[in-house]
């Protein structure tokens, strides 16, 4: 072209670029091609509108260093709203893989973005190294977002951690098959300079129809990845162990007592029969199980914990027969649970707190035991599992209390909408399908909950997401949602 700037250029001759980028931010709703911008548009699929619903409801807003604030005149703001635009001076990272603009980044490895003092943007990826996470975390650093330049070769860093993951626990979680060990982002600093990562066990085969994991990852421990600029201008990540395996599991305790009362019943010469009761009183619980670690005020890591106690009393009617030949026959004639109780709580300093116990109205159950898992409905198998749970808790490491739902034993599962927003504490057993009951959402202080609670049995029908821009929770949805 040898003429003055051609009028065929989109911006025309001698124009000035004011804003450019991606102004489509809002709630993405499954099945992935529907984007409700600021509430005024329903954008379907197509050219650069082909949104993919993130595989978790996590969303973070990162303010990149040195990026000027977006200022709009009232007229411009009105025009933005009319077409569903929302110009942000922040990057919205969504889902466990760190999507931006609702685009799949190419792998499920979680990632986030940082802009250094020189104005260079970097993509920081936590590699999915599976079993390698037992000992270290691999971080990839890649220059990102420069249009018109060839991609640079990324750099990898292997950072050893001190999570001291119990090998027995690790093996138990992975031995059953279908269990993956994954890194998950729990929180990202508002400027992208650091992020909190958990090494977690996850049930990767349990997804809903939209590809969203329905099981809460179960952390082994938490680390923080921080970034600084090295001598050659590339970011250098460093790792700090925040909560090791033992601290993450919290305090586990259990107690069991038994008593018996038998009466001798003459049967025949040489044979004796005893009948009576064997009673067991079981109590087990966890205090301070860390579910997530997030940045609190001042950037201080804050634990989000779950505590619970399960108590149960069992009575078994027994009969024993002893004959003169030395044989001893032991017969269980009846098995009954006289009581089972549960209480649990969530807590996070400066973040949220909740304590609840079961009730039976079926509507506002904070813990669904009274509704969907009534004491009278417990099977003998379930009761036996509870007993096993309690007994094993007395051991050195308690696999099942750190385990995933749907494993052999009864377990307590906190259900998370996001790593910052936790919903219901759920007890799940192998003999009863997973139960997802959604009570009052426990959310960051200063935000609103979203209304009345209810409980539902079956596949989780409720999805919510945390808007990282406004700090509010999305309305309840029957399909996955996430802010992009």
């Amino acid at each position: 072209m040898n003429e003055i700037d051609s009028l065929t250029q989109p911006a025309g001759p001698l124009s000035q670029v004011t804003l450019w980028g991606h102004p489509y931010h809002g709630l993405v709703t499954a099945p992935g091609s529907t984007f409700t911008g600021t509430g005024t548009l329903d954008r379907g699929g197509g050219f650069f509108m082909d949104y993919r619903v993130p595989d978790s409801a996590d969303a973070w807003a990162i303010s990149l260093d040195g990026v000027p604030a977006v200022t709009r005149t009232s007229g411009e703001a009105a025009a933005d709203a009319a077409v569903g635009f929302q110009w942000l001076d922040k990057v919205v990272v969504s889902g466990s893989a760190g999507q931006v603009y609702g685009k799949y980044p190419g792998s499920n490895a979680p990632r986030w973005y940082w802009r250094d003092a020189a104005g260079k943007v970097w993509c920081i990826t936590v590699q999915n190294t599976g079993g390698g996470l037992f000992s270290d975390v691999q971080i990839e650093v890649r220059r990102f977002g420069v249009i018109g330049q060839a991609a640079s070769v990324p750099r990898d860093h292997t950072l050893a951690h001190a999570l001291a993951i119990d090998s027995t626990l690790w093996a138990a979680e992975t031995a059953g098959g279908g269990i993956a060990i994954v890194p998950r982002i729990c929180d990202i600093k508002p400027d992208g300079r650091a992020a909190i990562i958990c090494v977690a066990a996850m049930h990767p085969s349990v997804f809903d129809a939209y590809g969203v994991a329905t099981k809460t990852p179960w952390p082994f421990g938490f680390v923080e990845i921080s970034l600084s600029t090295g001598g050659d201008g590339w970011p250098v990540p460093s790792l700090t162990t925040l909560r090791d395996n033992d601290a993450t599991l919290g305090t586990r305790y259990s107690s069991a007592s038994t008593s018996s009362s038998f009466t001798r019943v003459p049967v025949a010469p040489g044979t004796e029969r005893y009948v009576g009761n064997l009673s067991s009183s079981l109590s087990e619980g966890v205090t301070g199980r860390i579910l997530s670690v997030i940045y609190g005020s001042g950037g201080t890591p804050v634990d989000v914990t779950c505590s619970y106690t399960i108590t149960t009393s069992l009575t078994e009617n027994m009969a024993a027969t002893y004959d003169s030949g030395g044989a001893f026959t032991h017969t269980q004639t009846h098995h009954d649970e006289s009581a089972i109780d549960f209480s649990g709580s969530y807590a996070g300093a400066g973040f949220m707190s909740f304590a609840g116990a079961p009730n039976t109205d079926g509507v506002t159950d904070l813990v669904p035991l009274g509704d969907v898992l009534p004491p009278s409905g417990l099977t003998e198998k379930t009761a036996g599992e509870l007993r096993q749970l309690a007994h094993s808790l007395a051991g050195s490491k308690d696999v099942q209390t750190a385990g995933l739902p749907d494993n052999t034993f009864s377990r307590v599962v906190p259900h998370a909408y996001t790593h910052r927003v936790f919903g219901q504490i759920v007890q799940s057993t192998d003999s009863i399908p997973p139960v997802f009951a959604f009570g009052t959402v426990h959310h960051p202080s200063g935000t609103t909950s979203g209304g009345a609670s209810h409980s539902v049995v079956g596949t989780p029908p409720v999805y919510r997401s945390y808007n990282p821009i406004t700090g509010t929770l999305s309305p309840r949805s029957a399909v996955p949602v996430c802010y992009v």
Partner: protein
Amino acid sequence: MGDIAKALQQIGGADLSGGGMFQGTRPEFVPKAPQGKKPAVVGKGRTPASTSGSGSNLVEGSFSARTYWATRTVISSDGLFAMEVKPVKKITFQTGGTLTLADPSA
């Protein structure tokens, strides 16, 4: 001839002495002969003299002749994407004339 007579002569008065126009003897009107259709021509702009060579002062001579201000980076509103651009400083036309643009970063 007095001033009035001169003026009358200039506006078509044929004779001031013979009782002409002023005496009711107006001459017969003789229409002008038709001149025919004006031939077509190609219009030309008024071009001032060139200072050197030939061509137009609105057509760039060579793209490679452009000069630029220092490279600057334009970032997306969220800062995630960046483009490097070189603002044009000077354009030289075919005529040799130039257009100098201000530094946008100034």
